[in-house]
C-alpha cells in the first residue's frame, strides 16, 4: 500500500481502484442476474413461445398463450377468484391485526417483548406446517366439527375445508404476522400525548379513535393491506392444500400448468399476468399513500 493510494483523513476510500470495486460487485451481481434478472427475461420470452410439451422452442414468437388465456372464460373466473381471495384475506387480516398492533404499539407491559415475539412467531413456522394446522382445525373431523358435534349443535359435518372458505381463513392467519409487523413499523407517529390532549379537550374515546388514532395509523394500515393482498394473490401452497384441488386461483393454475400439464408458455403467460396485476396494485398503493400524506 503506497502513500499515494491512502485515503485522505476523514473520507472513505472513494477513489480506490475500479478493479477492487468490480471484484466486490461481480459475485453478487452474477448471482442476482442468474437467479432474478435472467428468469424474468426468460419468463417474458417463454410467454410468447408456442406451446410444446415440457419446453418451449426458440425462434418463433406468438401470442398464442395470451390469446388462450384472454378468450377463455375459465381464466377470467380464475383471475376474479384470485382478486376476491386477495381482497377478503387483506380486509380480514388487517381488521384482526389492527388491535394487536395497536396494543403492542401502546402497551407498557413488561411482557411487551415476549408478546411482540409471540405475534411474529408464526413466521418462523413454515406456511406448509401452518396450513396443516388449519386442516386439523377446519377438517371434517377437525377441532370445529368435532366440537360442534359433541355439543350436538349440528347433525352432520360442516364443510370448512376443500373450499375457498378454508383457504381464506388459513391465509388470513398465515399472513397476519406480516400485517402486524407492517402496522407496528407504521405506527411510529402514534403518540399517547396527542390522545391525552384530545381527551382533555373533551373528546370521548370514540372521537379520539376516529379523529386521532385512525388517521395517524392509516399509512401503516394501508401498507399492511397491500402486503397481505400481494402475498395472498401470489400464494398457491395454501389455496392448493386447503382447497383440495377445488379452489382455482392464479397461483394454483400457474403451478398446474408448469408441473402437471407441462405447458410452460401458458404458465409463463399466466405469471406475467400475475406480475402485471401485482405491479398495478403497488402503483395504486403509492398513489393512495401520497394522497393520504398530503
Amino acid at each position, binding site marked *: 500500500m503506497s502513500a499515494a493510494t491512502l485515503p485522505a483523513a476523514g473520507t472513505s476510500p*472513494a477513489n480506490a481502484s475500479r478493479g477492487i470495486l468490480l471484484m466486490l460487485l461481480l*459475485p*453478487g451481481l452474477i*448471482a442476482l442476474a*442468474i*437467479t432474478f434478472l*435472467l428468469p424474468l427475461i426468460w419468463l417474458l420470452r417463454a410467454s410468447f413461445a408456442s406451446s410444446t410439451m415440457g419446453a418451449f422452442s426458440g425462434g418463433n414468437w406468438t401470442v398464442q398463450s395470451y390469446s388462450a388465456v384472454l378468450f377463455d372464460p375459465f381464466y377470467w373466473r380464475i383471475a376474479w377468484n384470485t382478486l376476491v381471495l386477495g381482497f377478503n384475506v387483506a380486509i380480514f387480516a388487517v381488521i384482526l391485526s389492527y388491535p*394487536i398492533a395497536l396494543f403492542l404499539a401502546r402497551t407498557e407491559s413488561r411482557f411487551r417483548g415476549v408478546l411482540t415475539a*409471540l405475534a411474529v412467531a408464526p413466521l418462523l413456522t413454515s406456511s406448509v406446517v401452518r396450513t396443516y394446522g388449519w386442516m386439523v382445525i377446519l377438517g371434517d373431523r377437525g377441532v370445529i366439527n368435532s366440537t360442534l358435534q359433541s355439543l350436538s349443535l349440528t347433525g352432520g359435518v360442516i364443510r370448512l375445508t376443500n373450499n375457498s372458505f378454508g383457504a381464506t381463513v388459513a391465509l388470513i392467519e398465515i399472513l397476519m404476522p406480516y400485517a402486524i409487523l407492517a402496522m407496528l413499523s407504521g405506527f411510529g407517529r402514534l403518540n399517547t400525548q396527542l390522545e391525552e390532549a384530545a381527551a382533555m379537550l373533551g373528546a370521548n374515546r370514540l372521537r379520539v379513535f376516529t379523529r386521532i388514532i385512525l388517521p395517524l395509523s392509516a399509512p401503516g394500515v394501508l401498507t399492511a393491506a397491500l402486503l397481505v393482498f400481494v402475498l395472498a394473490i401470489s400464494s398457491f401452497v395454501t389455496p392448493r392444500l386447503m382447497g383440495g384441488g377445488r379452489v382455482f386461483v392464479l397461483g394454483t393454475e400457474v403451478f398446474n400448468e408448469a408441473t402437471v400439464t407441462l405447458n410452460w408458455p401458458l404458465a409463463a403467460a399466466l*405469471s406475467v399476468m400475475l406480475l402485471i396485476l401485482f405491479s398495478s396494485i403497488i402503483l395504486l398503493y403509492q398513489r393512495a399513500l401520497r394522497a393520504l400524506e398530503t
Partner: protein
Amino acid sequence: MQSNPLLGRIAWNTLIALLYLFLLAPIIVVFIISFDTRQYLAFPPESFSFGSYVKVFQNVKFISAFWRSLVIGAVVGLVAVSAGMLLSLSLVRYQFRGKAAVNFLILAPFLVPHIVLAVGIMLVIAPLGLLDSYPGIVLAHLGITIPYTVRTITMSLMAVDTRVEEAALVHGASPRMVFWRITLPLVRPGLIAGGVIAFLISFDEATISLFIVSVKASTLPTEIYHYLEYSTDPQIAALSVVLILISVGVVMAVEKLIGLRKAL
C-alpha cells in the same frame, strides 16, 4: 364508549387474547395432535403417545429430506453471506456510476412474487439440466436470500466507525489485514444474522422449491407438501413440532449470541 373504564379494559384485553389465540391456533393444535396415534386426522386425540414422533424419525423420506434441506440451507447461507458482504462493502464504502441500478437490483426481488420467480428460474435452469439438482435449488434460493443478507450486513457496516479502519491503515496495516482483522469482526453480528435469515428462508421455502425439485433434491417443505396431498396423519404434526422447536432453537441461539435487536 364513555362507560365503565374497567369494563372497557377487560373487553379490550379479552379481544387481544382471542386474536392471539386465533394467530397461534394452528401451532397449538398441531402440538396437541402430534401425540395422537390414529392413522387419520381427528380431534381431539384418543390417546397420548410419542408414537408419531418415533414414526417420523423412522421415515427415511423425511430424514433424508431433512438432511438435504440442512445442507442446502447451509450452502445458501454461506454463499448469500459472502456475496452479500461484498455487495454491502461496495454499496456502503464506494461511490460509483450505476449504484442506483445495483441498489434496485437488490431491492427488486422483494417486489416480485415467488411463484413468478419460480417459473422463471425453472425456465432458466431446465436447459442447463439443473432441475431437481443441488446446484439448481441453491441457485434458486440465492436470488431470494441475497437481498436479505445485503440488508442486514449493510446496516452492520454503516454502524462501523471508518476511523478505526483508517487508524489501522495509518499504522501500517495492509488493506487486506484491515478487512480481516478490523472490518470483518466488527460486522460479525450482521454476518451471523444474515446467514441465519438466509438459512431459515431456504430451509422453509416451499413455493420455488416445488417448481425446481421433485425426487433427488427434494427439500423438507416439498416432501411435507406432497405428503399432505394424500395423507394428513399425525406424523406430519410430530414433524411440524420438531421443525418449530428447531426454528425456536435457532432464533434463541442468535438472541444469546448477538441479540435479536442487533440482528434485525
